[in-house]
């Protein structure tokens, strides 16, 4: 059992490119920490530095109380699960799982016992004599987990282990990975680009962007109180609707394009700093689920032209346009930016609502759940 501590850890490649800019991160004993961010943000580099597969250019890395900067992967007592499983194709499932124990010169009967136990935990007993080529993707991933589990490491590292699986299997394996981690109670650092995985699996989530950590928090806190525009846009699916807006005197009214939204005193109370942005441009964020279809009960509303309605069964995703300028956070996937451009927003409404493309629809605004951001710094406006 151990913790992982990164203190001002940097990674600079020989060509001068700085992939990781002095990050600080703590993973507690038994904690499931997810490192999430877009492709190229440095999350895998961080993981590989913890594993000992990449040199650390600067900073300190500790596993438990031991500084491990100069130790090889074997000496760090870590186990790693790779994205493409990295199973030895010429060995059986049992041989794959037991290989590390064989290298440790463990007696054969002990190896057999441990391999059987791991196979039982992962539901692989039936396939123990098969080769990886004869297994499905999910089974292979479980073998990779088995290989990690059987070593009883101090730390688990996982590099996008579910990326190669189909959507349905990914959902199943998410639960399985979480279950196994909780059972083993080992500090785990899990890298993914999928924010749904991050939110559902992590005890805490560290959002990375361009080699820096943007925010480390519980999934719910990240969702409810993103520190900046990037985290706000990255976390949540569909993404948060972000618009340019202007605040009136005293921050009592929000001018969103040609529409006005009254801000009750509760908003000023929860965002004391908001009043300092009176008569200035800010960025306002609204999650799709905070824009239900207006039901005429009063309260703030906005109107938009419906472009597209996606029926998911449990809800409708309504793509609409308003005349306010949409803001995209730099670093969020380019494709998402293009799809979301042109003032288009997304609302999540009741599946029984009568909304059609081409209509003009009214949406209620849950003003207490609005997020506000400083357009120049991108930081959230709280207190």
């Amino acid at each position: 059992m151990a913790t992982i501590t990164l203190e001002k850890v940097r990674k600079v490649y020989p060509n001068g490119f700085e992939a990781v800019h002095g990050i600080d991160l703590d993973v507690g004993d038994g904690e499931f920490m997810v490192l999430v961010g877009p492709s190229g943000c440095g999350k895998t580099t961080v993981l590989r530095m913890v594993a000992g597969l990449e040199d650390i250019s600067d900073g300190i890395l500790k596993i438990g109380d031991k500084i491990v900067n100069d130790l090889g992967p074997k000496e760090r007592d870590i186990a790693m699960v790779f994205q493409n499983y990295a199973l030895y194709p010429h060995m059986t499932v049992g041989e794959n799982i037991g290989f590390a124990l064989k290298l440790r010169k463990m007696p054969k009967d002990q190896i057999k016992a441990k391999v059987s136990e791991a196979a039982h935990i992962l539901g692989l007993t039936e396939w123990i004599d098969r080769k990886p080529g004869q297994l499905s993707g999910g089974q292979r991933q479980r073998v990779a987990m088995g290989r990690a589990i059987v070593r009883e490491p101090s730390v688990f590292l996982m590099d996008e282990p579910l990326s190669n699986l189909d959507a349905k299997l990914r959902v199943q394996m998410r639960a399985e990975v979480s279950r196994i981690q909780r059972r083993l109670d080992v500090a785990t650092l899990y890298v993914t680009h999928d924010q749904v995985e991050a939110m559902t699996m992590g005890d805490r989530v560290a959002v990375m962007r361009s080699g820096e950590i943007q925010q480390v928090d519980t999934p719910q806190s990240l969702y409810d109180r993103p520190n900046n525009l990037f985290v706000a846009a990255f976390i949540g699916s569909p993404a948060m609707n972000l618009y340019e807006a202007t605040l009136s005197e005293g921050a009592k009214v929000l001018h969103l394009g040609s529409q006005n939204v009254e801000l009750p005193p509760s908003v000023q109370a929860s965002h004391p700093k908001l009043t300092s942005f009176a008569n200035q441009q800010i960025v306002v964020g609204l999650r799709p689920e905070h824009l239900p279809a207006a039901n005429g009960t009063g309260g703030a509303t906005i109107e938009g032209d419906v472009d597209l309605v996606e029926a998911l069964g449990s809800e409708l995703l309504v793509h609409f346009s308003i005349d306010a300028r949409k803001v995209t956070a730099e670093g969020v996937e380019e494709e998402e930016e293009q799809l979301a451009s042109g003032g288009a927003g997304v609302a999540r409404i009741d599946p029984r609502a009568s909304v059609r493309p081409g209509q003009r629809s009214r949406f209620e605004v849950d003003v207490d759940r609005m997020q506000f951001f400083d357009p120049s710094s991108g930081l959230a406006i709280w207190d």
Partner: protein
Amino acid sequence: MMRNRRRTGVRRYLNVMNVAVFLTVLFVLVPLYFMVVSSFKNPNTIGQSLQLWPAQWTVKNYTYVWTASHFGRNILNSLIVSVCSTILVLALGSMAGYALGRLPMRGKLPILMTLLMISVFPVIGVIAPLYVVLRTIGWLNSYQALILPYTAFNLPFAIWILRNYFLGIPREMEETGRIDGASPMRTLVQIIMPQAAPGLFTAAVFCFTACWTEYLMALSFDSNTNMHTIPVAIGSALSTIYTVPYGPYFAASCMAAVPIGILVLVFRKSVVSGLTSGAVKG
């Protein structure tokens, strides 16, 4: 309006590519076929006409080869030299290929280019100096006189083949090995090499074939009758002053071709895979 008529029957296959392939195959197979059937013909009738099917079948040519020359000994010599060279090439080539494909080192490109140049170097250019060296150190008419030069000349090709194959093996394999606690040599032998088996088979087959059929060095360095390899035996021991013994030539050639044919047939899939590995990112 022109209508595209689908060709049927044989005409479906009549295109430039298929015709070219057919003619090439014919070009290769016809002499082979002639060699095989002629090896079973009466030696007196071989040169008289182009019989594609012998009127009379005989094994006289084969018995002559075994009795007139020490063909069994020749086969043994070829086997020893080819097998030893192949083993050396695989052992050295795999380590060199791995280092050049995987390990961080400077000067990889110059080394690879040098290897490429060596692989196309004509043997005839080094025969004379090599003869002098071997004579000086007293290695003429020995197995090592052929094993070492064969190894040297086949190593570059093997290194290229194996390097390309190693490049196709995911890096995560080695990284997993490192994390599991395997040393670099153990990683190479227990993790990487088994996955590079097709590449190893390819290198082995090409090296063995090259050694088995090599004539010039074998003639120059192992001139003693007892040390003759198969190509030299066919060219000298079977020859007479007055006649060209086609029958025994064909019989000896058939016997020499059998091991190679079996080798290639058994490992043909691995050979193709080994040659084409790294061509497509997968």
